């Protein structure tokens, strides 16, 4: 585990918020019509003032703002639930999809696409699929009496494999939907607007707040199950609450953005560099880092091959992997 310069929350929290605001302003300006940060700020803060172009207001408010906000909350949600799962399972390798949410979401979305359920059908099916898969994993683990965190991880891995196999099979069979399914699986925020934000945003914020509230149980679980129990933690209740909150967050994020990898794994590690591993700070810090990363990644996805848009999940994996390796090397060398 890496641990470096510790900063006070009075330093990192405002810095990250300012960084996020700056990245958001930049992102709002990027696109087919370039808007300067000043123009974006005026369109945001004083849309009725006479020195703002009406087109700028329309572009910012109707076309871009919801997507940027969605990128921020999805990034925050993935990072927050990644941090929670890393603490609960005591492994730095855990990510939001570790107990089956991705497989369930993929199957749900695939079925909705094949079944031609349009509109909110695909995100809703992804959300339901993710929650159902996690509940199934949790139920199997509880029923098996081997109710340890390791059993939960193994059950999650097994179910994910089965669900991905089913998704692959469905893709093979229904090749006319192949492109749509595949682009959903790659993850992206293309075309998302206010309805998507209204659908996923509240669940993401509620889930994140619940995870923050569960910071001390998470801290206790990092010492192992017996330590947590000897400290008086009702283990099953605490674990169920953490799984529920993290899965709500993950499912809402997946419903909005598909399977965006890497943010949930890497953001908590970046946050630990400056805020340490106590979850009361790690959860909000990870969320802010995740929000910043996904806003930046989505901006890049929209611009690097314009007018073509890259799936943001591909970009996070392409850039995130090497960055993460570099960070690990840097952390180890210091």
């Amino acid at each position, binding site marked *: *585990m890496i*641990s470096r310069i*510790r900063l006070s929350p009075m330093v990192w929290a405002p810095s990250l918020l300012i960084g996020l605001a700056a990245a958001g302003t930049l992102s709002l300006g990027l696109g087919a019509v370039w808007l300067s940060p000043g123009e974006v700020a005026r369109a945001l803060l004083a849309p009725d003032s006479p020195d703002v172009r009406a087109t700028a207001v329309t572009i910012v408010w109707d076309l871009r703002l919801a997507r940027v906000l969605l990128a921020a909350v999805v990034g925050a949600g993935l990072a927050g639930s990644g941090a929670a799962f890393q*603490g609960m399972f*005591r492994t730095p390798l855990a990510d939001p999809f570790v107990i089956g949410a991705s497989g369930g979401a993929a199957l749900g979305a695939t079925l909705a696409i094949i079944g031609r359920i349009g509109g909110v059908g695909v995100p809703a099916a992804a959300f339901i699929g993710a929650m159902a898969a996690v509940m199934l994993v949790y139920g199997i683990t509880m029923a098996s009496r081997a109710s340890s965190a390791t059993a939960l991880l193994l059950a999650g891995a097994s179910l994910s494999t089965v669900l991905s196999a089913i998704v692959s099979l469905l893709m093979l069979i229904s090749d006319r939907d192949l492109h749509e399914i595949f682009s959903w699986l790659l993850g992206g925020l293309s075309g998302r607007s206010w309805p998507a934000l209204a659908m996923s945003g509240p669940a993401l914020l509620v889930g994140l707040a619940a995870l923050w*509230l*569960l910071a*001390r*149980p998470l*801290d*206790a679980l*990092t*010492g*192992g199950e*017996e*330590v947590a*129990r*000897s*400290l*008086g*933690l*009702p283990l099953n209740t*605490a674990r169920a609450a953490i799984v529920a909150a993290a899965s709500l967050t993950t499912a809402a994020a997946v419903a909005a953005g598909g399977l965006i990898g890497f943010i949930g794994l890497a953001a908590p590690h970046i946050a*630990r560099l400056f805020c*340490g*591993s*106590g979850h*009361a700070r790690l959860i909000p810090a990870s969320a802010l880092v995740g929000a910043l990363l996904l806003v930046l990644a989505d901006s890049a996805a929209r611009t690097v091959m314009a007018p073509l848009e890259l799936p943001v999940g591909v970009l996070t994996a392409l850039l995130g992997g090497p960055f993460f390796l570099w960070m690990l090397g840097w952390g180890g060398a210091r």
Partner: protein
Amino acid sequence: MKIPLSPDAVAGASRPRPHQEMLSPDHAAGSLAATDLRCDLGGRAVLDGVQLQARPGEVLALIGPNGAGKTTLLRALARLLRPLGGAVSLEGQDIWRLRPRPLARRMALAPQGAELWPLTVEQFVGLGRAPHRGWLLPLAPDDRAAVQAALERTGLGAMRERQVTELSGGEQRRAILARALAQQPRVLLLDEPTAALDLKYQAAILGMARRLAHEDGLAVVITLHDLNQAAGVADRLALLAGGRVVAVGAPDEVLTAELIGATYGVPVAVCRHPLDGTPLITPLRGE
């Protein structure tokens, strides 16, 4: 201060036979009793009818050969292992009928195997306040005071901001003890607290265990491999073998050449500590 031993704790202590400690129904604060306790691990009986009582104001050391059931007994006392039969009662109440948090306010465990995560020492020790403050509320000033007191008592006052993963082995053991002290328990369970520590820290930890019992009135139960450490720290010893308590009593009564020789299967000589006269065990070289 020496706690006088009651006659029932001494009776029959010097013969290697299954020992049944007489139990008075003790509801006193900080008394912990195992009654006919039976536990198994993976279908193998590990504890078989253990009868034992820890009393406030004294250090009770659990000793015995490897596999005798010391750690299993400690885990059963700490409510980490559900017994097959018998009961563990804290202040007259079955621990399995208590909810986890009220139990953790009265009884704390300092485990041996430390799985550490890079929390700061203050965050780590602060976890010991959860039984009092609850799991969701932030710590209050009196919690911080209790954490500070526990840190100072264990000599970690200057290390609050350090990460527990960066501490030395001895400091980590003290941090684990500090977390248990922050629980402000009446019963303190210590699992091999001196393992892998050098002489200075061994003495410091054992001295602290004695002060917690004799000055603060805690019931301290401690598992120890080292019989001479056990002789030095404990008011009473419980010798376990094959999942049973074969003897309970003062060090003089339990640490006899016959009893230890028979239980451990190695001939030993018993001499006296030059300063305090407690028994010292030396294994004799094989003939």
